[in-house]
């Protein structure tokens, strides 16, 4: 069971909101890069977020660049999962490849600051603040297997192949 607070964002949060291209010079210095997580969407996010918290998006979360640093800095911030109405394709694969779950559900009723409980096995989200329960779409088997190993590289190390 994952437990934490919701940080709510709008539709079309791009990889440039999550970690702008201007910080590309920090991509080999991840602790410094991670200080800028979500900076162009919420400049204070990096200081407010706590381990276990959730990012809650709207439509098309993570559109844009293929930079895997986007889900990487979110994971480094301690975020336990991203809940969103829909997600851009490359960001989705990248997050799962790093062992960061992206859960597709109707996030419209979740408010910023709500306390959430997520049961990955059952596919449910419980919003303790407003009492609502949500279910999220099951991932394809290959993605569940990759998540179970903590990411793509450890998955291939374990099995040697897909």
């Amino acid at each position, binding site marked *: 069971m994952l437990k934490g607070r919701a940080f709510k964002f709008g539709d*079309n949060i*791009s990889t*440039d*909101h999550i970690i*702008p*291209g*201007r910080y*590309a*010079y*920090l*991509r*080999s*210095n991840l602790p410094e890069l991670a200080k800028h997580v979500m900076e*162009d969407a919420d400049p204070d996010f990096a200081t407010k977020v706590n381990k276990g918290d959730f990012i809650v998006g709207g*439509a*098309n979360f993570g*559109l*844009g*660049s*293929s*930079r*895997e*640093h986007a*889900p*990487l800095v979110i994971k480094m911030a301690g975020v336990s999962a991203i809940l969103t109405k*829909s997600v*851009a*394709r*490359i960001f989705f*694969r*990248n997050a799962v*490849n*790093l062992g960061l779950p992206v859960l597709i559900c109707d996030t419209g009723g979740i408010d910023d600051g709500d306390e959430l409980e997520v049961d990955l096995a059952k596919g449910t989200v419980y919003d303790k603040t407003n009492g609502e329960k949500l279910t999220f779409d099951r991932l*394809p*088997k*290959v993605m569940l297997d990759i998540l179970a190993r903590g*990411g*793509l*590289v450890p998955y*291939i*190390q374990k099995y040697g*192949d*897909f």
Partner: protein
Amino acid sequence: MGKTLAEKILSLKSGGDARAGDIVIAQVDLAFAQDTTGPLTIRQFQAGKFERLANPSKTVLFFDHASPSPNRELANDHQFMRRFAEETGCKISDIGGGVCHQLVAESFAKPGDVIVGADSHTVTAGALGAFATGMGSSDVAIVFALGKTWFRVPESLKILVSGEMGRGVMAKDLVLQLIGTIGADGATYKALEFKGEGLKSLKLSDRLTVANMAVEAGAKAGLFPADKVTRDYLNHQKRGEDYQPLAADSDAVYESQININLTALEPTVAKPHQVANIALARELKGIKIDQVFIGTCTNGRLEDIATAAKIMKGRKRHPPTRFIIAPASPQVLLDAISAGYIRTLVEAGAVIMPPGCAACLGLHQGVLADGESCLSTANRNFKGRMGSPEAFIYLGSPATAAATAITGEITDPREVM
């Protein structure tokens, strides 16, 4: 039941009957990374303790995003990539070598290929009938090691193209209208497949512009059939043997169909801060522009620079408006020099950058200041993209960009042609 282009290519490369919705493992013909995604790709490859590349001659590292290196940190990243190439025998395209997607088109991609790159605009090679898609560093690292990856076979949207573009209209206007119509997530997880008699008039450079921006509608691929236009291009690149005709089956199944009449298009601009936020150039007259940028994998080709040079011939840029041009490859630069376009543009007040991504992503060579506005021929106008999160990016064609450089405000190119 017939197959779409995506289903045909993924069937061929997975050795099975790939249908939309299936998960397949496909062989990869070319895998690459660039200098902002390459270091993490290499680190993931090393984390997996892989000892060798599956196909060194089909593995490429391109130095284009920050090239030549603008600071110590990125110089160290370049050094790290060069060492990896020495150790593994992969190919590199070092500084000044040009934008990865342009080089993939010029020298690597062929109809029926599967191509993956650690860059979202890898979709560009769909112009040649290759199933080409962007992935992150972990995925590409595994392709480096295994020579294959998994795909969910995408559903396809049929984009039926008719007519012919009029004066002052370019392929950029086509693709901006398409994205404006279907939205920034209108094709998420899907392939855009372009068909119809209108394709005959779209040169390969036009098709590269259109396929390049498929990802701005969320698409996994933007696919064109391989036809006479493709054959002529490959012959021109002295790669005639790489040609094979490729078309979807006549009874292929598409999720939906969108019709585009080229004849009806007008110069189009995407307004800040979303690509789908379009308007006609003539509707934006009066918006002051501090910097005009022509280049990138979207519009840094010879045809783009030729269009700009023809408009700028004998004219000067509006004095306070900066005018930056970055040819997408050395071949483009040399051809533009031979044709006299570079002289014309420098005389008009343009600054010429080395072949590479230049100002596109806010790392160097034309970073915007707070409050400034730029008219760019690139593919993204997200907040913060070109440096300052307080800047405003408008996207348009090279013709619209040149017209805007002359007047210093967004201008429909038909006004100055």
